[in-house]
Structures are given as structure tokens and as C-alpha cells.
């Protein structure tokens, strides 16, 4: 048992990867540890050649994963797009782990990321002592991935500035990176590729330039289709977080979660659960992650201000915060939803009243 908080995927699932590699006799692209078919089995679950059970890493549509793996098998880069909480980084990590056995070539892109963190940096002591030289050069994960023929992961690509993003264009189209200071260049070995993730509904991000965009194949990861699945995810995360925050979890939390999720799902899907009424959608994403935050917020409020009993009252304030991101439009959307749907629905009168009050 490791005393580390979390291990990378290739170590956590080392047994599964080994089993898959043993039974894998299909064609492999160069420098891939597994064949594309085995990568799919690793992601979606199934059985390895020797009968080892492979746990599913991604629960969702098979076709999306097929497109993702096929993309990496060509020399196009892969961009995973989706609202927060749709397992983008998770998929990216496992793809890298399965394909190259190394998911640690990671660059977290932020507004403060500059070119030196993408291309290469300098060890200034060496630079002063020896001038520009190979020894003074500090390679980035991207640099090393090119050298080793591995996958480089770029998290939240659109969070870094557009000018820095465009550094990637040469790397992606010509598979090389010039090092002007040394009058040389490094050329990517076969097997090198890039998996980027980005949030398609965020504000304050830097849009990809079309030059960069057309070097990516894009796979959009959707929110869970199935209500029960999502309720289970939320319930599990909520109880985990409640434990770590030392919040008491009342008995009715499951029911309230399913009510909150019903409202969230209906609003983000733009239709009631029975499919009979179409609705407008608010500008926020109302993802699974936000539902978790809402319920945890409600729990906290209940614990500190309401003797631990969780009611619509506590949840409503948090829900309004999640739903109304644009004070004018989203408010109208919510009001319309309250008046036309929630008002008449049995079991939701407390929510109708509490939300109406909170709006």
C-alpha cells in the first residue's frame, strides 16, 4: 500500500494493463503499448485475453471513445471538450496511461502559463556559465514527450493566452520544435501526440485560434444520460465530501438529491423528465459537479444554521446560485420553470415556495 494520496493511472491499474498487453496480438501503432482495440477495452471495461476482468474507466458512449482512440492512432491531436465534471481529465489520463504507459507528461495551462512552460526553459546558472547549450536547456513535458514518442497532456488548454496556445501550431503540424538559441530543432518520434482538454461553456477563456483548432479532432464528452446513474454519482460524492468536512448527513438526503437533480436535469435538457413540456435552458452548465456543490452547500447550511435538518429552504439558495448566472435571462428562465412546471408538480411544493422566495 502506497502512502501517497493518489497514484497515476498506469500504477493504479498496472495489473489490468499488463494483462491486456499479454493477450494483445492485434496490430499496434508504433510506440504504442497496446493495440487500439485493447485501449478501448481498458477504457470501457471488459475482459483481457487471459480472462482478467477489466474495470470500466469511462461509463458512456462507446463511439466517442472509438473516435478518441482512432484520432490518436492518426497523427492528429485530440481535444476533449465538455462542461466541468464530464470526466475529460480522467479520460485523458487513462488514454495516456493505456497508450504509452505514462500519464505524467502533463502541462496545466493557466492564464499565467508562458511559452517557456510549453516549449523549453533555461537553467539560468548553466546559461550564465556555459551560454546557450544543451545542458542549460530545461525541457518541458511537451519537449520530453516529443523526444520519447509519448503522449503529452494539456489540461484546460483554453485557459492560457492565445499567443501561448499558438506555440503549439508548429508542434502539431510539423511535429518539430525549433530551438532558435542553439540553431537546432527537436523532431518528434513516432507515437508522440497531444491530448488537450478544454471547457466549452466557461467564461473568461481564450478561444482557440482557427489555425490551432483545425489541428485538433474534437470529441465532446456529454453529461450523464441516465438519471439513476447521476443520482448515484452525486450521492457518493456528497457523502464523501460530507465526511471530509465533518458534516452530518440527514436521512432524507437521497430524496433531496433526486429532487435537485430532477430540476437540474430538466433545466439543462430543456425538457421535463416525462418529455411532455419543453423548457428554456439557463446559461449555466448545471453539471453533475454543480449539483454536488449545491447539495454540499445545503448540507453545510443545514448543519450550522438549521440543527442539521435538510429542507428545500437550505437547498434553494444554493440552487438559485447555480441556476441564475445571468441576472436577467436566467431569472426569467427559472421563473417560467417555476410557474409552468414546478407549481403543479406534487412533492415539489416546498421547492416551488423556497425557490420563489430565493429568486
Amino acid at each position, binding site marked *: 500500500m502506497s502512502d501517497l494520496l493518489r497514484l497515476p493511472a498506469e500504477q493504479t491499474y498496472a495489473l489490468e494493463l499488463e494483462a491486456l498487453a499479454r493477450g494483445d496480438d492485434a496490430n499496434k501503432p508504433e510506440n504504442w503499448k497496446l493495440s487500439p482495440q485493447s485501449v478501448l477495452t481498458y477504457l470501457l471495461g471488459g475482459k483481457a485475453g487471459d480472462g482478467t476482468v477489466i474495470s470500466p474507466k469511462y461509463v458512456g458512449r462507446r463511439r466517442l471513445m472509438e473516435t478518441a482512440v482512432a484520432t490518436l492512432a*492518426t497523427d492528429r491531436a485530440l481535444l476533449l471538450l465538455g462542461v466541468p465534471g464530464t470526466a475529460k481529465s480522467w479520460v485523458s489520463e487513462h488514454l495516456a496511461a493505456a497508450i504509452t504507459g505514462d500519464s505524467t507528461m502533463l502541462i496545466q495551462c493557466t492564464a499565467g502559463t508562458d511559452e517557456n512552460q510549453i516549449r523549453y526553459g533555461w537553467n539560468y546558472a548553466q546559461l550564465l556559465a556555459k551560454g546557450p547549450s544543451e545542458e542549460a536547456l530545461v525541457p518541458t513535458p511537451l519537449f520530453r514527450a516529443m523526444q520519447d514518442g509519448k503522449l503529452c497532456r494539456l489540461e484546460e488548454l483554453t485557459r492560457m493566452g492565445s499567443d501561448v496556445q499558438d506555440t503549439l501550431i508548429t508542434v502539431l503540424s510539423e511535429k518539430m520544435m525549433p530551438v532558435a538559441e542553439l540553431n537546432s530543432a527537436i523532431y518528434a518520434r513516432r507515437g508522440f501526440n497531444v491530448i488537450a482538454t478544454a471547457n466549452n461553456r466557461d467564461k473568461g477563456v481564450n478561444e482557440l485560434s482557427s489555425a490551432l483548432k483545425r489541428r485538433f479532432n474534437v470529441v465532446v464528452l456529454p453529461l450523464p444520460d441516465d438519471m439513476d446513474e447521476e443520482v448515484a454519482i452525486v450521492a457518493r460524492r456528497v457523502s464523501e465530501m460530507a465526511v471530509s468536512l465533518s458534516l452530518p448527513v440527514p436521512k432524507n438526503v437521497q430524496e433531496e438529491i433526486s429532487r435537485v437533480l430532477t430540476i437540474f436535469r430538466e433545466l439543462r435538457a430543456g425538457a421535463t423528465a416525462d418529455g411532455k413540456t*419543453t423548457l*428554456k435552458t439557463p446559461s449555466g452548465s448545471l453539471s453533475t459537479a454543480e449539483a454536488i456543490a449545491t447539495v454540499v452547500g445545503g448540507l453545510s447550511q443545514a448543519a450550522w444554521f438549521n440543527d442539521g435538518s435538510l429542507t428545500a429552504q437550505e437547498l434553494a439558495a444554493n440552487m438559485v446560485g447555480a441556476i441564475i448566472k445571468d441576472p436577467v435571462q436566467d431569472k426569467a428562465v427559472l421563473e417560467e420553470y417555476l*410557474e409552468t412546471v414546478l407549481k403543479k408538480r406534487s412533492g415539489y411544493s416546498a421547492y416551488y415556495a423556497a425557490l420563489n422566495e430565493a429568486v
Partner: protein
Amino acid sequence: MGKDASALDAVSFFGIRHHGPGSAASLVRALDEQKPVAVLIEGPADASALLPMLASPAMKPPVALLCYPEDDPSQASFWPFAEFSPEYQATLWAMANGVPVEFIDLPSTARFVEKPAKPTDASPPAETVETAAEMVETAAETAETAEAAAQEPEAPAAALPPALPPEFRDPVGVLAEAAGYEDGESWWADLIEQNPAPGPIFSAIADAMNALRADLAHLPEFEAKREAHMRLAIAAARKRHEGPLAVVCGAWHVPALQGAVAQKDDRALLKGLPRKKAAMTWAPWTMPRLAFAHGYGAGVDAPGWCAHVWHTRARRDGASRWLTRIAYILREKGHLVSTAALIEAERLALALAAIRSRPGAGFEELREAAVACLFGGEALLWKTIEDTLLLGNEVGEIPADAPLAPLIEDLQRHQKAARLKPEALERELAIDLRSESGLFRSTLLHRLLVLGVPWGRLLDKGGSRGTFRERWMLAWEPEYAVQLVEKLVYGATIEQAASAYLAEQLGQAAALDALAELIRTAITASLPVAASRGLALFEERAARSSNCPEMLAAIPPLADIVRYGDARVSASTSSSASTSGLGQLGVLLQRLIVEAAINLPHAARELDAEAAGEMTERISAAHAGIRLIEAPQDILEAWFRGLEAVLGDARATPRVAGRAAHILYEAEALAADEAVTLLERRLSPGTPVVDAAGFLEGFFSASAMRLAHDEGLRRAVDGWLTGLDEDDFTAHLPLLRRVFSGLDSMERKRLLAAALGRGPSLPAHLVPAPDGGAGWQAHLNILHPLLTGNNADG
């Protein structure tokens, strides 16, 4: 028996996929190889005489063979043929090679059912559903029933009954699905890729069908009859023709047709088929109507893709061409798609095919590659081009010498029943909707209007709503017949065609108010299917739309329907569907009112003069509609809350706010003293004159007479007017004139009198002098000759 079995060797059975381009291509090659002396095709045997016309150069598919009982076109069945239909290609091959070609399926008359209902009225809905379901089931394989044709996918009757197993409809598709394919054509293409000779493919398909049919417990009776008829027809053809025969039929039937069954048993099965006289002709068809989603039981999912497969059957660059087509459609919609992106998409499609262990990139691979490379991962974007790409919009043509179109025949029948003759000269016709015959005539004229045949022009349009009278001006123009032939694709009777055509227009209507008008049309023309589709669409759009002006404009027509709609319906025999539709509409309308009210404050903000004028009129019209339906209290309150919000919103356009205040005041939701306070505040010196004038106009332009009766209001307005300085007053004179222009001279006098505080008497300086009477007579004596030009001196 034994002789029959050995003789069957000379007959080749080609089990095809209906409208499958892959099987069409294989079939043509197989025919070239086999060189049969006659081609037998699965199709109504009594229509064989029309087959040669199918190969005529003037015939441009998609076209459909149309058979109907002579006295009742509403029971028409259609057999559509596209360019890529194997049956069509087989016919072309036979005509080109000079061999006879025949249909061998049950005659079309066997599909007609006795219907007691009057042909012109909509039969009670329960029965319609039943017959339609039954007919779809029996005819599902090749023919499209008229019912199914007339209805859009949302209509319950058009959907295939769940009892019908999919292998009946598309057994090849079932095999493809079992092999993990979404698209039967891609599966077929891969199959050919692996087995290049056409002969083995058809025998492989026959084997597969044997397996599929093996666990079939019970063959529906109609299917059994069809197969019996085909067996007998093949045997008869064998007697007539020396040499090899080719039988082209749905793959599903091959095992049954190859099986040995005594002719005696087949004949026994075929006894007692209905013998009605059938009329038949060719009708132009459209590509979208070949699609399964458009209610055609034997349709394909994507006719556009089928056409593509057919056209590129001899090429290696099919995938590139398909992607290029996607790119063209995207570019037309204003998206930027580069050639490089197409190359990447094709490479991804090939990689996907490799991952799925398929020999080539098929429909699914190309779609997923296009989504990832061309659409930025947005599957929604694919939905927006799906119709253009997969359905296509080609319309077929038929030769001029094709038999007479059933729509014209149907019209003639209706004209007889309605005792209305088509005359070129204008003639006025008054109709009383309470009588059965009156309603029949009115419905006919309204339906023709829907079809773009304005034989009758409705006089006093709109004025007659809510009464039982309609006045029409009739005049027949020859080009109306042409219109009817063009509309044949929508259905074989006036009712079906009108319903389907209206349903299509409903699908295209974007704005809520346009949609509401179309729903009203559907209800007036008593087309319940179109009406309920319209309602469903309306509900969907209404929920998505936040366009308040549209919602407001949709309220009056819907209110009209709710209030007066059943005036037409109750008189007619069919009722339950329409009345339940009306009930649904009532709920929908109430929701619409609430939504409009919620969006009202936002929509009323910062409008320019023109928009403000439109908005005030829409609000008034909507309010009239709301009063018309006598909306329940909570809806009315929601509406008033919306108006109050406009009134309380500092950014609301003053003119709109004025109208809102007026409506509230009239409805007594605003107390008299509150109204006075409001008016005083809105017209107080602190308010810019422009705003105050706008508010005044909104408040009074519809009802200036209020001022004459209501002293409080009058004082407020009077105070504002007299307080204006001269320039402002002059500037707003036109506006003030507009406000008071609605009054006639009598009313103006009374208002003036009231304004001057004297009641009916005249103010002091206008009262005539005491001797005025006598003096006036003297003046008159002098004036009269001058005015009449009858000068005594002259």
C-alpha cells in the same frame, strides 16, 4: 411436385433490400450474368401494364405507383421507386434488353378494405388508427398506405405498430444490426467488398433469411397470401416463358418462394379476396418521403445516403465525395470548412473503420469523423444539416400521358356532393355552418385554400368568426388543376393532401404567431391531424422562444380557436379528437399567456417609436384574446402582474407602460385614485415631455372618451397640458391630435364641454349675444345668395 422442384433451378431468386442501392448494383450485375428471358418483380400484379411506362425517359424517379379503389381514393396505396431501388433498376434492365417484365404480388385490390365511413368526413379517430395500423402492417413491406402518407411522423397512426417485427420491414437491416452496423448499406458494401461475385451474395442472403425465418412461429395471413400469389405467378410465368427467369423480391420472401407448396393449397388460400375495381397511375414522389421517419413503412433511414451510394457505386472515392458534400452544405450555412479538414476527416474515418475491423469507411465512420473534424465535436451541428444531407429534396416527374390524377377526381366527387359547379365567373355563396351541407361546403373550400387553390375567396374575413355564417366569392381558374396535380405528392384525396401539406408548412413555420395562424387554418379546414401536429410543434417552440412579441401575437388566433373553434366542430360528426385537442390548446394558451407575461417587462424596454406602437397594439390584441377566453383567475392575475411589472419598470417604454396602465385601469386592477396618482406622476414636470406624451398616447389613444367621463384623469391631463410651454406644446400637437382623432365631432364637443367644466352648456365667451337670434336672420339673408351663387342682383 417433383417436376416443379427440379424446374425451380431455372428460376433465380434475387432477395433484395427495398430501396437498397447496394443490392440494386449487385442485381444489375447478376442480371447481366444470368440473362433471364423474363423478369418478375414483387409488386401488385394488376399494375403490370403500367410497368413499361416506368422505363420511359420522361419518368424521373422518385415516382410512386398509386393504386386506389375507383370510388374511394382515400384508400390509396403507394409503391415508391427511387433511382436506386432494385425494382426500378430491374425494370430498366428488362426494357433495355427487350424482355417482358411483370409484377407478381397480390393485386392492389387485395389491399382495399371495406370502409363504411363516408369518404369525405374524417372518420372517428379510433377507427382511423385501427385501420391505419392494420393497413401499415399488411402493406408495410413495399407499399405505403395513403393514411401513412398523409400523416407526419408524430401522428400516432403513422407509427408502425410495435407488434410488427423489424425483420418484416427490413431483414437486411436486421442482419446488419446483428453485425454491429447502424446502416444496412454500409454492411452490404462491406459484404460485397469481401465477396465480389454477385451470385454468392444473393445465395448468402437467402441462407441468412432461411435462418431468420426458421424461428418465425406464425406468418400473418396477409403475408401468407402474398407469398402464395407470388408462387402461383412464378409457376404461371414458367409455363409461358422458355428459359431462365429472374425473380426480384424482398429478401425476406426468398425462402418462401423457393419452398415447394402445392398449387392447390395456394389457390385455396387466395379465395375470397376483395374484388373492387382499382384505378392506378404514377405520381411524382419526393426524396424525403422515401425516408422511414416520414411515415413510409418500407422506407430507408437516409435516402440521401442511398442515392450517394448508388451514384458512387463504380468509384473508389465515395468517402471523399460524401465528405465534400457535407462540406458544401456546411459552407452554404456559413461555416468555414477547409479542404485540409476534409482530408483529416477521411483519414479519421479510415482509422475508425480499422478499429472496428471493417474493410472500408461506411456511413457511421464518416459521420463520426465529420463530427470530430468538421463540426468541432458538436453533434448538434450534424443535426442541423441532417435533413439536407440525408433526405435530399429531389422531386420526381411523370410523363404527361400518365392516367388522370386522383386529386382532381376527388375534387370532382366533392363538387358533386356539395352541389357546387366550378365556374369561371364570380359568384357569391353564403354558407350557414350549422347545417351539415353548409359545413361540408365550407370545409371543402377551406381545404382547397390550404392546397393553394383559391377557388373560393372568403369575404368579410375575420368578421364572421364567432358567427355561423360565411360569405364566399367563387371563381374557378384552369391553373387550379395544375396546382392539384403538383400537390398529389401529399396525398390522394383533398383531405389527406391538405393535411399533409399543412403539416409540412407547420414544420417550416419559424415564428409562433405564424404557427398559431396555421393551427387556426387547420382547425377551420377541419384537419385534426395537422392541427394536433401544429399544437405539438407550437408547444415546443413556445417553450423555447423568449420572443415576447411573437407570443403576444400568437394569443389572439389561439384564443379565437378556443372560443369559437368548437362552433365548427360541434356541428360536424367527428368530435372527440378535436375537442380534446381544444382542451389541450386551452392549457397551452394559458401557459403561453403566463410566459408572455413573464417576458413582458423585458420586451417592453427601450423600444423605438415604431416598435412601441406595434407592441402596444399587440398587448391590446392579446388582452382582448385573454378576455375572450375568460381566462381563469390565476392566469389573469399572472397577466396583470406582467402588466404591473411594465408599469413599475423605470426602463419600460412610456407608450407601452401607458397602455399597460390603461388595460389595468379598465380591468379595475388599478383603482381610480391610483390611476390618477399614476397619471399625475407620469405627467409631472419632472418627467421629460417626450416620455409623458408617450405615456399619454399609450393610455388614451384607444379610449380618449375616458377623459370626458373621468374627472380625476381629466384633471391630471389638463394640468399637464396647460403646464407645457408653447414650444413643447407645438411639438406634441401631432401626438395629441392622434390621441383624440378617434373621437367623432359629438364626442369632441362633449369632451371640450367637460374640459371647460360646464357640462353640456357652452362656456361664457361662446354663448350668443341676447339679440343674436334676430341678427343672425339678417346675416343669413345676405349670405344665402352669395353661398348658393344665386345672386339676386345677377
